[in-house]
């Protein structure tokens, strides 16, 4: 619309400024060399980034979070693609109910899911263990994986699978040679989302971590409860760049997949 009034344009600019303020401030303060973050910064430099590289707690947390997110992604893809395939291709009684149950964890607050997991895992001895964290995170990534894969499968014409079957391919071969390749864009998108959701997860992790096993977001959470220094800004910038990189990779690989499918 070209008849947008000047006042409206100014309002929109201010709203964008408000929305992006925390990210911009984090970026600027990551180049501060001060002991603590205060305005205006007195010294500029890369001290925050240097301190970050030397922080053993953050390094350990990063390691845990990367392994955790990769495992959770693999598990939610296998479980999610399988469940989505079954729900889309076999209509059986109770399939609608099952889908509702699979998606239900997204509707409940993470704080309640975390508490429930704490109660059960305390009995099972899974607190502060990698398997416990993997199960807890998969709970929130699985619904995304199922939903995205379901949309992907529903977009595939069953005629393609039928054609392969008529030409003599068995059901397993049809799945791996026809259905799975066509589902690939959905799987890539689901993988990226699952990885990010697990890597950034805070609330459920709070209930499941222990002194010996902590994820990166939990390390940051406890750190900033007591202090604000350039190190955390530098770490935040690194995390934002990692996210952006992942989004670009997905964007590119989806483009490549689309080109291959043509």
């Amino acid at each position: 619309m070209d008849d947008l009034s000047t006042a409206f344009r100014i309002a929109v600019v201010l709203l964008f400024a408000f929305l992006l303020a925390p990210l911009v401030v984090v970026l600027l303060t990551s180049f501060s060399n001060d002991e603590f973050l205060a305005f205006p910064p007195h010294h500029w430099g890369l001290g925050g980034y240097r301190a970050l590289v030397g922080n053993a707690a953050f390094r350990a947390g990063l390691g845990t979070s990367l392994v955790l997110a990769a495992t959770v992604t693999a598990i939610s893809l296998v479980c999610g693609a399988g469940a989505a395939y079954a729900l889309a291709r076999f209509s059986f009684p109770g399939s609608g109910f099952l889908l509702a149950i699979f998606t239900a964890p997204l509707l409940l607050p993470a704080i309640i899911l975390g508490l429930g997991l704490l109660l059960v895992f305390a009995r099972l001895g899974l607190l502060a263990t990698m398997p416990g964290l993997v199960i807890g995170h998969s709970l929130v990534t699985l619904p995304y994986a199922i939903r995205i894969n379901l949309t992907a499968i529903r977009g595939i014409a069953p005629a393609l699978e039928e054609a392969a079957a008529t030409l003599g391919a068995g059901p397993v071969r049809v799945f791996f040679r026809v259905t799975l390749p066509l589902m690939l864009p959905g799987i890539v998108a689901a993988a990226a989302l699952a990885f990010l959701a697990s890597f950034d997860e805070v609330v459920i992790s709070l209930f499941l971590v222990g002194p010996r096993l902590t994820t990166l977001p939990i390390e940051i959470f406890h750190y900033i409860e007591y202090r604000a220094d350039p190190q955390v800004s530098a770490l935040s910038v690194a995390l934002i760049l990692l996210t952006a990189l992942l989004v670009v990779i997905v964007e590119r690989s989806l483009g490549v997949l689309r080109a291959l499918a043509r």
Partner: protein
Amino acid sequence: MKRAVAAAGPLAPAALLTAIAFVLPLAWLLRLSLDRSSGGGMLVDAVTAANYLRFLGDGFYLGVLWRSTWMAALASALTLLLSYPLALFLARTRSRWRGFLAVLTIAPLLVSSVVRTFGWMVILGDQGWVNGLLRLVSLTAAPLRLMNNMLGVLIGLTEVMMPVMTLALIAGFARLDPTLEEAARSLGAPPRKVLLRVTLPLSMPGVLLGSLVTFVLSISSFVTPKLLGGGRVAVLATSIYEEALETLNWPFAAAISVVLVAVFGVALMLYERAMRRWMI
């Protein structure tokens, strides 16, 4: 029957995971909310409403419930107020920057809530950017208290929720036929009247959905109230956390969780009622 058997194989892993990580914990949580705690993390098997009665009989916890509710309602209202112009702009602009601006609006969703809340701590703290700027132009002697109170939590929540609300509103605008606004304009309605009499009523489904989602996410949010509230803003989520991990009174934490889900139910009912009114 044969179909159900064929589907069982690929369904099994997801079903198992959901059973262990979702159904079992929730059932356990419900049951535990009826147990008694003897303090210090010891559980006593019982079937009692004591935890619920304690919540409803204690002025402190009723205050927590009340504070959480109005915090979430106010955060939703503020988010709506700030997101509506943004969504309207993104839905109507013909700028070639439109795609980029839309990505910019949604991008914060992908950034960890801890990072975004940390950004607000740097802006709102006593030594933060707002107070620093005010000091530079010597407007204030003592720093303004923008954090470690409800004001800080509301500012943070509003910003964190804006992308979600904007998405819901844009989806609403997409279904709105722009020729209706043109018709109103050509019949002589001034811009303000077009907005209030045509655009706003027709975008109500998006407004209601966005408000519901924002309310539900706000009342159950933990990171923002905990960090920007600095331990001084007790809401349902922070109380669940404290009872579960600090006081170690798990039955009471479970009971507060059930109360939170009940508030969800009420919000959903109000939403459906409002939707029915607007759809007719």
